[in-house]
């Protein structure tokens, strides 16, 4: 009973900021000077969301977007962690890559979009590649810093026990730099979302959440836009809780390398 009460209380706390935001929104929608078509009431949005969801449209869009996101991000993760580790371990790799990486890092990924359209045409392939390029640099930089920050005593201990190149990578450097790598992957995923929504507009794909948002602009369907935005928010939270936080609990928290 008491547990139920505390559970209820924590749920209430969790919901509180959303409730406040919703109330403010609703007040503006009803009493503000915006026309309802441009600033719809949450009731309208919820209604539209329900219609889009039951018609399957939201799922089709979410599926298309997730497909691009996951492939683009995985590509960035694999390449980013690989390059980052090489840069952290080998001076020549650092010398070669660092100038390129530090120059490319601050360039907004969207700047390459027209180039990718010219090279790869329209559709999923350039979208995935652009997501990968845009999000890999932050993964590289964080992984590289993580490898640099590995305690030398771990490497010494491992080497004195006979660990050499491959074993050292897999059994020491990789787990030791995991806190930084996870941070890089998180930032990379955020970057991937950001670029993907814009890319879906530019690449003339015919499905996806970003496509839905920009498509809805033409018909002033703000309720559709908000529904898509809500799905992006849900998916973001879902990935954070189900992938990153799980991974963190299973590794860093269990190992005492990060407070629970």
């Amino acid at each position, binding site marked *: 009973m008491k547990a139920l009460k505390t559970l209820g209380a924590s749920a209430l706390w969790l919901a509180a900021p959303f409730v406040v935001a919703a109330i403010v929104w609703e007040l503006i929608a009803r009493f503000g000077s915006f026309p309802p078509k441009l600033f719809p009431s949450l009731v309208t949005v919820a209604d539209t969301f329900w219609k889009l969801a039951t018609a399957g449209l939201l799922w089709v869009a979410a599926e298309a977007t997730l497909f691009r996101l996951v492939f683009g991000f995985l590509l960035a993760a694999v390449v980013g962690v690989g390059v980052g580790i090489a840069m952290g371990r080998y001076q020549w790799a650092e010398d070669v890559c660092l100038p390129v990486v530090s120059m490319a890092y601050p360039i907004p990924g969207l700047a390459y979009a027209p180039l990718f359209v010219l090279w790869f045409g329209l559709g999923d392939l350039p979208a995935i590649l652009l997501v990968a390029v845009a999000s890999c640099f932050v993964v590289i930089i964080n992984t590289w810093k993580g490898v640099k920050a590995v305690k030398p*005593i771990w490497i010494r*201990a491992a080497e*004195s*026990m*006979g660990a050499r190149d491959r074993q050292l990578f897999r059994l020491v450097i990789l*787990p030791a730099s995991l806190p930084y790598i996870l941070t890089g992957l998180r930032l990379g995923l955020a970057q991937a979302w950001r670029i993907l929504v814009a890319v879906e507009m530019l690449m003339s794909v015919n499905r996806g959440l970003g496509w839905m948002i920009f498509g809805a602009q033409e018909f002033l369907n703000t309720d559709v836009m908000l529904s898509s935005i809500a799905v992006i928010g849900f998916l973001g939270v879902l990935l954070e809780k189900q992938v990153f936080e799980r991974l963190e609990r299973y590794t860093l928290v269990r190992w*005492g390398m990060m407070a629970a």
Partner: protein
Amino acid sequence: MVEAIKAHNISYEYETAAGAVLAVKDVSFSVDDAAFMCVLGPSGCGKTTILNMLAGFLTPTKGEILIGGKAVAGQGQDRGVVFQDFAQLFPWRTARRNVEFGLEMRGVPPAERRETALKFLRLVKLEKFADAYPHQLSGGMQQRVAISRSLAYNPAVLLMDEPFAALDAMTREEMQKLLTEVWQATKKTVVYITHNVAEAVYLADQLLVLAAHPGTVKAQMRLDLPRPRDALSTEFVEAQREVLKHLVH
């Protein structure tokens, strides 16, 4: 008596931005097989530098080190190293998996590895904590795991750099007693670095006393007090006074 370790006129010079720093100068010593040698000296006299050369982390700028009759070139599984820093254990591995590491590098199959690791954890009285992660252990327990980790793959020589310096006095005494037992049970040659005279007299068969700036040998002596040693006995106090004399003059 066979010599397990022989250092012949070794020197080490650090290259720094401000120029070369001669940390160790013309140091020679030898350690008997299965003996416990303590290296004693004031801070900055080059103790860690000497240990790092024995371990193969540093190469002497002059001179030569022989271990088991072979010249030292880099790290090797013929030596185990225990550092002062508790952080030497891998936090992502349980105590048992930490101890297994050296065996894993040697390609020992998992079941056998596990068996051996548990045996060495039992030796330091930590078999109950085999599945604990390092962050769940106290400093003294972590150092015990580190000792069993460096023994598990059966090196001939154990190198220890002030492994108990960061522990409280009571734990340190327990650890010294335990280390003596472990050493007697495993018959390793040990080089143990300390700046604590009582600790050196409690542990050592052989003693290397160093002077600082640059690090040179001040005295070499043998201690043959009976074991287990009693820190309150007159012989013990007498031996301590003897060592101190070398240290201050």
